[in-house]
């Protein structure tokens, strides 16, 4: 059986190649996935509590006993005037801090503003944040590409502008810019840094200021907060906990899965594609092994016959061929895992600079051992099955026919 060394090597190279590509592809794909998810997940609250201005679900006429059985056709219901503020937010935050499922909370104020650039006003959004909490939970400093994020807290009346916005306004660090709120209040803010999120829409319109600065800008008291961002220990619980809080606090609560469902779908589809490509490669390699073993059996018919004539049972013959297949699978698989790791490391070194992703310097790779385990298991399983059918055929060879045929 050793005589077919060349074919055996070809088969093993097939397995090696497919395992290499499988591991590399999955590492690279899931590296990219993590990167893209990270763009959203690291920066987004797992649950966001806020007040939404919308018409009440139950109109007075619905509550009325008298008209319960009547059809209500009033369709032009308008929302009543209410504030965006979360009432009693201090107590809510205190309560949230005691919840064991939560790893942290950060209050936030979101407000519409106009950035005044000479005679022109640019619309945009200022996020008032608790600088330290924001950095701890959402890695704020990673996105501050110039300037120091903590200056936002230490310098009164300061602002960190989105990179695209700063370019439009020609604002350098240390410059003073002027903003106008929706209510007409004007305020001068000092630029202490730029941030770059990688999402153009955000970079062109948003900027960050501290909570105190924003409250001052809006002329509100120190308890004014419009959002509470919650980060959970286990992100998968977000939808359930969001529902729970929605009921408990009578607020809108949106979980990350609902808010970013397109990302979830994108990730899972990408993962699915890479798995199917990898598995296809392995199956093709499996067919290669199947073919080679089949040929081998036809060539070695005489040898198999004589082995059986001299007392080797069908099971022994079966074992020999399965053994060959598994040897190919194991050797090819191990080599493939090593090469796959090597290729992943190589890809990891390739520079990948993009303006959109300031924190990424090289192509992302996820060295998850799971891919290696899947690759190893799959290489053995496919080669086993590739060997199984030819060897069953070999074990059923009737020595009489071959010996007589000569």
């Amino acid at each position: 059986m050793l005589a077919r060394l060349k074919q055996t090597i070809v088969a093993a190279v097939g397995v090696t190649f497919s395992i290499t590509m499988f591991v590399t592809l999955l590492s690279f794909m899931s590296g990219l996935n993590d990167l893209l998810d990270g763009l959203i997940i690291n920066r987004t609250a797992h649950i966001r509590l806020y007040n939404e201005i919308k018409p009440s679900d139950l109109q007075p006429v619905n509550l009325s006993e008298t008209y319960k059985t009547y059809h209500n056709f009033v369709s032009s219901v308008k929302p009543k005037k209410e504030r965006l503020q979360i009432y009693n937010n201090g107590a809510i935050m205190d309560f949230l801090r005691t919840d064991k499922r939560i790893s942290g909370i950060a209050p936030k104020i979101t407000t519409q503003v106009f950035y005044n650039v000479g005679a022109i006003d640019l619309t945009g959004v200022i996020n008032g944040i608790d600088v330290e909490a924001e950095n701890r939970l959402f890695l704020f400093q990673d996105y501050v590409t110039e300037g120091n994020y903590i200056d936002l807290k230490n310098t009164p009346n300061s602002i960190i502008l989105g990179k695209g916005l700063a370019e439009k306004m020609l604002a350098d660090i240390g410059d003073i810019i002027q903003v106008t709120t929706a209510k007409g209040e004007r305020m001068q803010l000092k630029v202490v840094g730029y941030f770059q999120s990688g999402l153009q829409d955000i970079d062109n319109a948003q900027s960050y200021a501290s909570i105190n600065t924003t409250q001052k800008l809006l002329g509100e008291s120190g308890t004014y907060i419009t959002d509470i961002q919650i980060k959970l220990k286990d992100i998968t619980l977000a939808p359930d906990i969001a529902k729970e809080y929605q009921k408990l606090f009578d607020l809108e609560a949106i979980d990350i899965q609902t808010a970013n469902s397109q990302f979830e779908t994108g990730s899972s589809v990408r993962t699915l594609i890479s798995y199917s490509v990898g598995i296809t490669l392995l199956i093709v390699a499996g067919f290669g092994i199947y073919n080679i073993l089949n040929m081998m059996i036809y060539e070695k018919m005489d040898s198999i016959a004589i082995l059986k004539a001299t007392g080797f049972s069908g099971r022994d013959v079966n074992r020999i061929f399965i053994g060959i297949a598994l040897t190919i699978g194991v050797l090819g698989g191990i080599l493939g895992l090593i090469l796959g790791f090597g290729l992943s490391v190589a890809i990891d070194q390739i520079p990948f600079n993009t303006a959109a992703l300031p924190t990424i310097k090289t192509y992302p790779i996820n060295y998850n051992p799971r891919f290696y385990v899947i690759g190893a298991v799959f290489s053995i399983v496919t080669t086993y099955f590739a060997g199984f059918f030819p060897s069953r055929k070999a074990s059923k060879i009737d020595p009489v026919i071959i010996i007589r045929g000569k």
Partner: protein
Amino acid sequence: MDQIILEAKAVSKYFHDPVTVQVLTDINFSINRGDFVSVIGKSGCGKSTLLYILSTMDTDYAGDILIDGESMRNKKEADLARVRNEKIGFVFQFHYLLNEFSVLKNVMLPGLKLEKYSEKEVEHRAYEKLKILGIESEALKKPNQVSGGQKQRVAIARALINDPLIIMGDEPTGNLDKKNSEIVFDIFKELADVYNQSLLIVTHDNEFALRTDRIIEMEDGRIL
């Protein structure tokens, strides 16, 4: 010495494809230890078929085969393989040596399968068998490096490795020239006389058959 080691009881055999033809009809005979028996007959009289039935490789027959007093009917494939391994040695018209292994390893293979002796002992025994056949000097060569006559002798050594009850030969000299046939016959004779080895040889070489102890002549699936 008159111990029966192989017995055929009313063995009949049919070929069903394409039409049912009876190739063996009611074969009854027995072989004692140390017998040197030859089976002769014209081509197609069923002598090879009989041999394959006796050797347990062909299981599609009527009647019964007793090897060493044990019935071969209703045995499983793995058990029959074990019987072949332990009790029967084969020599075919073609040598069927495995070119991947050395001559020595070829001889050792059935012994290693039997697992009665350790590998070292099997190797030692293989050398002894090769010595009996006068080819121990070729032990480490590959089968395709030795001559045709030597190959047949290696095949005989392989048949001997597990000290079988009986050696079965299917035209073992059919492919050999006069000189080599002579050598092979002398080996068989020596095995029978000196080592008290039973042999059952199918041949159509009448000269060969005449020199054996006993001749079974067959015609049209019957023993004459």
